[in-house]
């Protein structure tokens, strides 16, 4: 019972913070035109001939770009949604990772995730994408490259 009250108190505080924060993130008058668009960022990892079993990358976008969603990769081994910190949503930095213990793993260049972004304005933002680690089925680090393109998958 004490735990429930404690949890409730914390959550009520959180809800207050969220409602205030929600107001603060939209300080402009409601009637102002907002040039907003949603853009998918396709992220690829190329592990060469080595099957890719685990990967982790960090994405940093400009301040006026917000991360609104994360989607799984194209290969069946990474069909489940990857791990990420929900605190990253509606912010401009995120760490995304996934692993698979499946027998069938992708090699070569594979789309590992799609990150959905909310972009304000007409300019094309520049993103900083860093591959933290890529691993093979033994859990050993392997060399790999990370690339991305903005837009619907070709």
């Amino acid at each position, binding site marked *: 019972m004490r735990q429930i009250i404690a949890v409730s108190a914390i959550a009520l505080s959180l809800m207050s913070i969220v409602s205030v924060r929600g107001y603060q993130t939209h300080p402009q008058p409601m009637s102002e035109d907002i040039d907003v668009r949603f853009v998918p960022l396709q992220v690829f990892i190329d592990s060469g001939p080595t099957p890719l079993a685990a990967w982790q990358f960090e994405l940093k976008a400009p301040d006026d770009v917000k991360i609104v969603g994360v*989607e799984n990769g194209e290969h069946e081994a990474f069909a489940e949604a990857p791990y990420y910190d929900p605190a990253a949503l509606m912010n401009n930095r995120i760490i995304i990772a996934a692993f698979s213990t499946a027998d069938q793993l992708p090699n070569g260049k594979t789309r590992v995730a799609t990150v959905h972004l909310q972009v304000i304005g007409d300019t094309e933002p520049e993103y900083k994408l860093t591959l933290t680690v890529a691993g093979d089925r033994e859990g050993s680090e392997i060399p790999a490259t990370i690339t991305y393109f903005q837009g619907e998958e070709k």
Partner: protein
Amino acid sequence: METDQKLIAAANSGDSQAFEMLYLRYRDWVYALAMRFTGNAAQTADVVQETFLYLLKKFPGFELRTSMKSFLYPAVRHIAVTIARQSRRTMSDEELLRQAPARQPDVAADHEDLAAALAGLPPDQHQVVLMRFVDDMSLAESAAALDLPLNTIKARLYRALQALRDDPRTRRYFLA
């Protein structure tokens, strides 16, 4: 990713960003569906906008008792028909006569057979095939969207697949 129900709950609590995520999740699906009904990009854009404004007006207090696709499908269809009807009303006879048939997709040469075979199906069977294989709706979702018994949907799909299997133009799509 957050489930639809979580986003709806958050939007009901006044979280506009949750609604925006819901919009993003279904925007392209609604666009593709609306394009099938209208056949032109301008009307389709209007349908997408009106559909999500219609959904937005249900907040706060929205309760999703079925899947989002089952909820959106009849809304998109109704709004598309309304907009298409309004558009024709404002067109002159000359413009209407010049308008190309709107419902058939641009057909690549290697898909002509498939398009022709589908066009030969009765409309209710054609519809269920598209809902199942293009819109990725389950049979239960299709039944809910069309407000029909599940067995009716099953029967329509079965007859459609039988016809396509027996059609030499589409036999290749069926495994032995």
